[in-house]
C-alpha cells in the first residue's frame, strides 16, 4: 500500500500551506490564561494565610491553652491563666539557658518566694555552695499536669552535687564553724555501688540489754538441753503466769492458760491506727511521721511489766517468781531517776519501820536552846539507823535489778535532800546511787530518710515467713544469717536487726527479672522517694499529694 506523499512527482510547492498558516496552528496566548492548577494554588495560599492568622487569633483569645506547655500543678491551678504570676517577661525561669545569670535567677526566684518564703529560707546544708544552686524552676518544673508532684525532682538535681560531694561543698575557709561530714561517698542512684550503705544501720546505739532471740522462743526460755557454755534454761513461762490484767494481750483466743507463752512482733511493736497521735510526743521525728509509719515506742508498763515486775523485796533473779501474787507496794516504779529512787526507798522503808514500831512516833523531838549545828534527836537517829541498813540492802538490790537491763551512771546525791536525818560527820553527799542511762534505742533508725511501715506490711510473703521477717530476719531465732548459737545467747541487742539497702533494692529498682525469671523491681527509686531538701527532716517534705489534689 503506497502512501501518497509530495514525492509522487506532482509539483506541489505552490500549493503547500503558507508559514502564516503554520503559525496559526500555535496557541500563542495560552500562558495569559491561568490554568486550573495555578488558580487552585493561588487560592490555597490565601486559604493558608487566613488559616494561620485565624489560629493566631484563637491563640490570643485562649492563651494558656495555646501557649502553655501543659497544665500547671494543682497547687498552682489558680494562676493557670496568669502567666506573669510566675514568669518574668523575657527572663528565663530555669538555669539551663544561654541568658541565665544570677540576676535572672534572683528575679525568677523572687516570684516563687512571694508565696514560698519559708521553704526558700531553709538551707539544705550549712556547707551548701549556693553558687551552684539553681533557680526554683530548674528543679521544680511545672506545666507537667494537674497531678504532677513538683517535689518529685529529677535525681540529677541531687546527684549534681552528691556524685562528688567533696567538690561541691564550701571549703573549710568559707565555713569554719561547720565541721564537714567525713562521709564523701558518691551517690549517683539507689543501688548497691551507687548509694552508700545506710549509716543509721552501721551499729546499734541502744544500751538496753535484751535478747530478741529468747523472747521469740516458746516459753520465753532457752532450750532445756542447752550445751555447756550456753545460756541455761530459765523460767518457762505459761500464760497463767502473766497477771490477769495483761494476759489477754498475749494469749491467743482458745489457747490454754497452761500453754507456753509465744510472743510475736506485734506483742511489743505496735503501730498507731490512722489518726492517732498516741505516744508520738516522745520523739519529734515520730511526731512528724504519718500514723502507722513507725511502731510506737516501747513502754515498760505496757510491754515489759507483765513479766518483768520489779519487786522491792527479794533477791536479784527472784523477780520472776510468782509475779501474779506480788503486792503493788512492793514493786519498784520504773523510770525513776537516782534521786527519785532514793526518795521512794527511804519513804517506803520509813513507813514500814513506823508501822512496825509506832512508839517511835510518840517520842518528843529535842529542841536545841540556840540555833546551832543540826543535831538529830536520839529517837530519830535510832530510826535512821534502823532504816539505814535496810536502805543499803534495797539500794543494792535496786542497782542489781536496774543493771539487769540498763546501763547505770553513778551519781552522788546530796545528803540534804535525804529523808533520813543527818548526823555529825555524815558526808555532804550520799555515794552509791545511780541514774539509769538512756536506752538510746532510735525511734527512727534512718533519720535522713522517709519510710512508712504501713504499705510495706501488706507485701506478699513466702508462706513460711512472718510478714516482718523479710526485713527483720535477724530478730527471729531461725535467722539463717545468725552465727551458730546466737539465738541462745543471753543478749543480742548489739546486732542491728534491720536489713540494709539490699532489702530495699529488691523492689525499689528499675524493673527487671531475677535468675528465676520473676519480675523484680519496678518501684520508684528516685532520691526524693526517701530524702528531703530545704533543711526538711525525713517527714518534713513528704511527697504526699498537695492539699488541692487530696481534696479532689
Amino acid at each position, binding site marked *: *500500500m*503506497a*502512501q*501518497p*506523499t*509530495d514525492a*509522487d512527482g*506532482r509539483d*506541489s510547492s505552490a*500549493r*503547500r*500551506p503558507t508559514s502564516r*498558516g*503554520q503559525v496559526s*496552528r500555535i*496557541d500563542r496566548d*495560552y*500562558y495569559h*490564561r491561568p*490554568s486550573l*492548577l495555578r488558580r*487552585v*494554588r493561588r487560592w*490555597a*495560599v490565601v*486559604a*493558608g*494565610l487566613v*488559616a*494561620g*492568622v485565624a*489560629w*493566631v487569633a484563637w*491563640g490570643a483569645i485562649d492563651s*494558656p*491553652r*495555646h*501557649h*502553655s*506547655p*501543659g497544665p500547671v500543678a494543682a497547687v498552682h491551678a489558680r494562676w493557670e491563666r496568669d*502567666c506573669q504570676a510566675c*514568669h518574668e*517577661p*523575657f527572663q*528565663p*525561669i*530555669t538555669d*539551663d*539557658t*544561654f541568658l541565665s545569670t544570677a540576676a535572672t535567677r534572683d528575679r525568677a526566684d523572687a516570684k516563687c518566694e512571694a508565696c514560698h518564703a519559708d521553704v526558700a529560707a531553709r538551707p539544705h546544708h550549712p556547707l551548701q555552695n549556693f553558687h551552684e544552686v539553681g533557680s526554683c524552676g530548674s528543679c521544680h*518544673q511545672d*506545666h507537667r499536669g494537674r497531678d504532677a508532684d513538683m517535689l518529685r525532682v*529529677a*535525681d*540529677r*538535681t541531687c*546527684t*549534681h552535687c552528691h556524685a562528688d560531694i567533696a567538690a561541691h561543698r564550701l571549703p573549710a575557709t568559707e565555713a569554719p564553724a561547720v565541721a564537714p561530714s567525713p562521709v564523701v561517698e558518691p551517690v549517683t542512684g539507689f543501688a548497691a555501688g551507687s548509694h552508700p550503705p545506710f549509716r543509721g544501720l552501721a551499729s546499734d546505739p541502744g544500751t538496753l540489754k535484751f535478747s530478741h532471740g529468747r523472747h521469740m522462743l516458746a516459753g520465753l526460755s532457752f532450750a532445756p538441753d542447752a550445751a555447756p557454755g550456753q545460756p541455761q534454761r530459765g523460767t518457762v513461762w505459761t500464760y497463767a503466769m502473766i497477771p490477769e490484767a495483761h494476759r489477754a494481750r498475749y494469749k491467743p483466743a482458745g489457747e490454754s492458760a497452761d500453754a507456753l507463752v509465744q510472743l510475736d512482733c506485734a506483742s511489743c511493736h505496735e503501730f498507731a491506727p490512722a489518726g492517732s497521735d498516741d505516744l508520738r510526743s516522745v520523739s519529734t521525728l515520730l511526731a512528724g511521721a504519718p500514723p502507722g509509719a513507725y511502731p510506737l515506742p516501747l513502754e515498760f508498763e505496757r510491754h515489759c511489766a507483765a513479766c518483768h515486775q520489779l519487786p522491792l523485796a527479794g533477791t536479784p533473779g527472784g523477780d520472776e517468781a510468782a509475779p501474779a501474787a506480788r503486792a503493788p507496794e512492793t514493786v519498784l516504779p520504773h523510770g525513776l531517776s537516782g534521786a527519785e529512787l532514793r526518795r521512794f526507798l527511804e519513804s517506803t522503808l520509813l513507813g514500814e519501820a513506823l508501822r512496825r514500831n509506832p512508839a517511835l512516833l510518840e517520842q518528843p523531838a529535842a529542841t536545841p536552846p540556840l540555833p546551832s549545828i543540826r543535831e538529830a534527836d536520839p529517837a530519830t537517829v535510832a530510826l535512821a539507823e534502823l532504816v539505814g541498813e535496810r536502805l543499803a540492802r534495797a539500794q543494792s538490790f535496786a542497782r542489781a535489778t536496774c543493771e539487769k537491763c540498763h546501763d547505770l551512771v553513778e551519781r552522788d546525791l546530796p545528803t540534804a535532800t535525804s529523808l533520813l536525818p543527818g548526823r555529825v560527820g555524815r558526808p555532804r553527799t550520799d555515794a552509791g546511787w545511780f541514774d539509769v542511762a538512756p536506752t538510746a534505742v532510735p525511734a527512727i533508725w534512718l533519720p535522713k530518710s522517709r519510710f512508712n511501715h504501713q504499705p510495706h506490711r501488706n507485701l506478699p510473703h513466702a508462706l513460711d515467713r512472718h510478714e516482718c521477717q523479710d526485713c527483720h530476719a535477724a530478730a527471729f531465732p531461725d535467722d539463717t544469717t545468725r552465727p551458730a548459737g546466737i539465738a541462745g545467747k543471753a543478749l543480742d541487742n548489739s546486732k542491728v536487726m534491720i536489713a540494709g539497702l539490699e532489702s530495699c533494692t529488691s523492689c525499689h529498682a528499675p524493673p527487671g527479672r531475677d535468675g528465676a525469671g520473676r519480675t523484680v523491681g519496678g518501684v520508684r527509686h528516685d532520691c526524693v522517694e526517701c530524702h528531703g531538701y530545704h533543711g526538711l527532716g525525713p517527714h518534713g517534705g513528704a511527697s504526699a499529694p498537695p492539699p488541692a489534689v487530696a481534696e479532689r
Partner: protein
Amino acid sequence: MIIGGRTWPKDRRWIMAITAIALAALGWYVVEWRQLGHLPGGSSRVGLTCGIAGGAIILFELLLWPRKRVRSWRLGSAQSWLRAHVWLGLLAVPLVLLHARLLFIGGLLNQALMVVFFIVIVSGIWGLVIQQYLPKALLEQVPAETIYDQIDHVARQQCHDVWRLVAASCVTAGDDHHHADPAEETADEGDHAVVTGFRAMTGIQGRVVETLAIHAVIPGTDEVRRRFVAEVRPYLLAGARGGSTLASAPGAARFFADLRGASPAEAGWLIERIEQACDCRRQFDLQARLHRWLHVWILVHLPLSVVLGVLLAVHVPIAFNYW
C-alpha cells in the same frame, strides 16, 4: 532528576554536611540530657540553638517562593536554590525535633506548628520523590508530549487535521454532514493536509508535523468516515474523559483491526494516520495524569508553608517571653 546523576557530587557534599550537623546537634543534646537528667527543652542551650537554626532554615525555605518572583535579581541559580531548599529542609527535621524535646511539646500553638511542619516536610519529600522519577517516565512514555496547558488545543488541532484527511479521502455517507468539523469550513481548503504524528529514530523520538497531499476519494471507505465521526473524533476531542474504548491501547487495537477488515486495502494508510492520532491522544491523557501527580503535592506544600510561617512568627516572641 533532582538528586543524583550529574549533580551527585554536589548532593554528596550536602548530604555529608547535613549529616555532620545533625550528628553534632544530637551529640550535644545527649550530653546536655545527661547533665540535666531530663530531656532538654526548647529554652535549654542546645534546644534554643537548634530552634534558632531550625527557624532560620524554615525562613530560608520560605524565601524560595519570593525568589521565583524576582528571578532577575540573579540570587544564585534556580538549581542551587532548589538543592539548598531540599537538603536544608531535611536538616530542619532533626533540629526541630531536638528543639521540641523529641516531640514532648505542650501548647496548641506548638502542636499545630509541629503538625504543620511535618506535613510540609512529608509533602516536600513526596514531591521530591515524584519529581525524581516521573519526568523520566514522561520522557519515555510520552514522546508526543506538548505543553500541558495546550493539550486541549493541540488535540483539537490534531482532530481537525485528521478530519480533513478523512473528509477528502472517504466516501460521503450522506448523513454525516451534521458531524462536520466547524473548523473545516474556515480552514484553508488547499489540496494539502498538515498532520501531526510521532516518530522514533535512532533513539530519538518525538512529535512531528507532516504535510500530506490530498488525493481523490477512495471507494468503499464510507465505513471509515462513519466510524471516525461516531467514535474517533469524540475521543480525539475529549480524551479519556469521554469513556471511549479508544482510551486503552488494547481497545484501540481491536477497533482499528475491525476497521481495517471493513475497509479496502487502499485506505490502509488513512486508517494508520487515524490510529496514530488516537495513540497521540492517549499520550496526552497520560501526560495530563502524570502532570497532575507532578504538581498536586504543591497544593499541600505551599499553603501549609504559609501557615507554618505565620505560626512561627508568633511562636518566637511568645517563647522568648515565657521561656
